[in-house]
């Protein structure tokens, strides 16, 4: 019996379930159901594929599924919410390598499949390889196994350009005679892995939201290419969704930093224009937890502005505790979220959701800026560049033009910070020297704990 019709029919059902699932993701209330529906679509697609008449041996595939399920479930259970960027980076990479392997397998079995198939195999392997090694580097930087700073050296752009040219020449040689091209094919795999490393090492920590989004998109495009190579409709459809999703996020992140994608990928942030920006300096007014308590206690509206430092010190639960204490005293509390705060799109939202902060209290940048003048105290927790007034004032600054949360327009600013070291961008922050700014030095979690202790002592 021929199952092709049944298989492709179920693929259509799966595609509809994916779309419906993504549609439900537009609201926090329905999102969980959407994820479940998407998972059902995936389950159906995989199960019906087992009817494929080309499959004659189920042993290895089932072992693979069992191993993968155990690893995946363990990952998903033990990962901390602060580690989500690392996990997504790693999973982008797994998506890439899976597409590479499927493309490789297709070539291995049918080296004579024609120009179109071979072109898609080439693309699947190239994009999959870049996604895999690039994601591993991104993962290394995010999990701090590698230094997060941009790694730049002389002739980097030239070398990358050369690498791409060699890959393209290799690709056309391979496509002109795929059957005899196995060594070239292996060379292309190797070079695409090298290219992935080269593309991500010059990108620094604070640009990670862009890179993760972009690699997310690549993992979808690679799946799409693999789908074209093995003529599988559901791979094409699902791959295109992921590709589109990643591109949308990349775009949102670039806009939030007022930078072009080109600038992020090749700019080596913080290195360009070094020394050109205006000197910042002046007197820093440090305070202690007790003074912070007095300032907060006298306020009637407080906004917390979290950044990557919140994730590093895992202070989200203490922050929520302080927020609750303020609310008990009738103080209006909001949490101002910058789109690129943290290391991935939506990073702060996840952390605060974990700490049970209701999402109505999370205010987006544009909204909070509109009423920031009426806020008595802005508390900055481990954020730097996203509140740097240089983005508005200093035309020479490398972050000039980036939309920021304009905390300097509020009545008082309290900055929780470990030391006076500059933020990721390597530029000073004039906010720290402003008349209405107070610095509370120390680990964010301990500082917040100290303020809470003051509240409880009264």
């Amino acid at each position, binding site marked *: 019996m021929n199952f092709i019709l049944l298989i492709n029919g179920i693929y259509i059902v799966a595609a509809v379930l994916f779309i419906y699932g993504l549609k439900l993701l537009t609201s926090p209330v329905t999102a969980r159901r959407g*994820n479940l529906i998407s998972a059902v679509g995936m389950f159906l697609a995989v199960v019906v594929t087992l009817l494929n008449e080309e499959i004659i041996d189920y042993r290895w595939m089932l072992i693979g599924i069992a191993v993968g399920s155990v690893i*995946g479930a363990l990952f998903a259970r033990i990962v901390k919410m602060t580690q989500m960027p690392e996990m997504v980076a790693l999973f982008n990479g797994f998506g890439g390598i899976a597409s590479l392997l499927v493309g490789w397998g297709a070539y291995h079995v049918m080296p004579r499949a024609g120009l179109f198939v071979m072109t898609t195999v080439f693309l699947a392997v190239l994009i999959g390889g870049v996604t895999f090694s690039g994601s591993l580097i991104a993962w290394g930087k995010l999990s701090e196994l590698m230094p997060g700073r941009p790694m730049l050296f002389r002739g980097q752009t030239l070398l990358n350009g050369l690498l791409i040219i060699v890959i393209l020449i290799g690709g056309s040689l391979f496509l002109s005679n795929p059957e005899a091209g196995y060594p070239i094919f292996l060379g292309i795999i190797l070079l695409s892995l090298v290219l992935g490393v080269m593309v991500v090492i010059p990108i620094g920590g604070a640009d990670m939201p862009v890179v993760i989004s972009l690699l997310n998109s690549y993992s979808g495009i690679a799946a799409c290419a693999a789908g074209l190579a093995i003529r599988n409709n559901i791979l094409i459809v699902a791959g295109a969704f992921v590709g589109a999703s990643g591109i949308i996020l990349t775009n949102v992140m670039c806009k939030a930093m007022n930078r072009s994608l080109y600038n992020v990928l090749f700019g080596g942030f913080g290195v360009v224009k070094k020394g050109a920006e205006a000197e910042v300096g002046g007197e820093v007014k440090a305070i202690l937890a007790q003074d912070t308590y007095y300032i907060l206690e006298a306020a009637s509206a407080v906004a917390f502005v979290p950044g990557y430092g919140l994730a590093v010190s895992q202070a989200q639960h203490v922050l929520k505790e302080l927020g609750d204490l303020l609310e008990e005293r009738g103080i209006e509390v909001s949490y101002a979220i910058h789109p690129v705060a943290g290391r991935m799109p939506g990073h702060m939202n996840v952390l605060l959701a974990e700490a049970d902060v209701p999402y109505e209290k999370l205010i987006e940048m544009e909204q909070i800026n509109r009423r920031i003048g009426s806020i008595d105290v802005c508390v900055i927790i481990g954020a730097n560049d996203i509140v740097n007034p240089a983005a508005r004032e200093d035309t020479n600054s490398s972050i000039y033009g980036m939309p920021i949360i304009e905390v300097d327009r509020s009545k008082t600013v309290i900055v929780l910070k470990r030391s006076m070291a500059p933020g990721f961008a390597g530029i000073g922050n004039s906010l720290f020297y402003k008349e209405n700014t107070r610095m509370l030095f120390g680990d964010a979690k301990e500082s917040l704990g100290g303020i809470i202790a003051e509240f409880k002592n009264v």
Partner: protein
Amino acid sequence: MDPQACNDACLICMALILVLSIFIGFEVISKVPSRLHTPLMSGSNAISGITLVGAVIAAGSVGGTMAVILGTLAVVFATVNVVGGYVVTDRMLQMFQKKPEESKK
């Protein structure tokens, strides 16, 4: 599903599917609010594990030892994405869904 049997009409069909999917993807996903962007990413990690469908065919067909090795490895990676991606997204969305009165437990 033999690739060598696929003709021009089939190629055009696939191209059409690809183009329409891209448009639907953009249309639906651009409506996801920024607060759900992390679950969107981990959810699309899971969806990109769709390569599993291609991988199981490769791991189970008669392509020789090498093809089975490649296929099985692909199955492992893709399954990690599918299972890990959906489970972690569910974990996150569960937190987003919490009602204020529940949170005081």
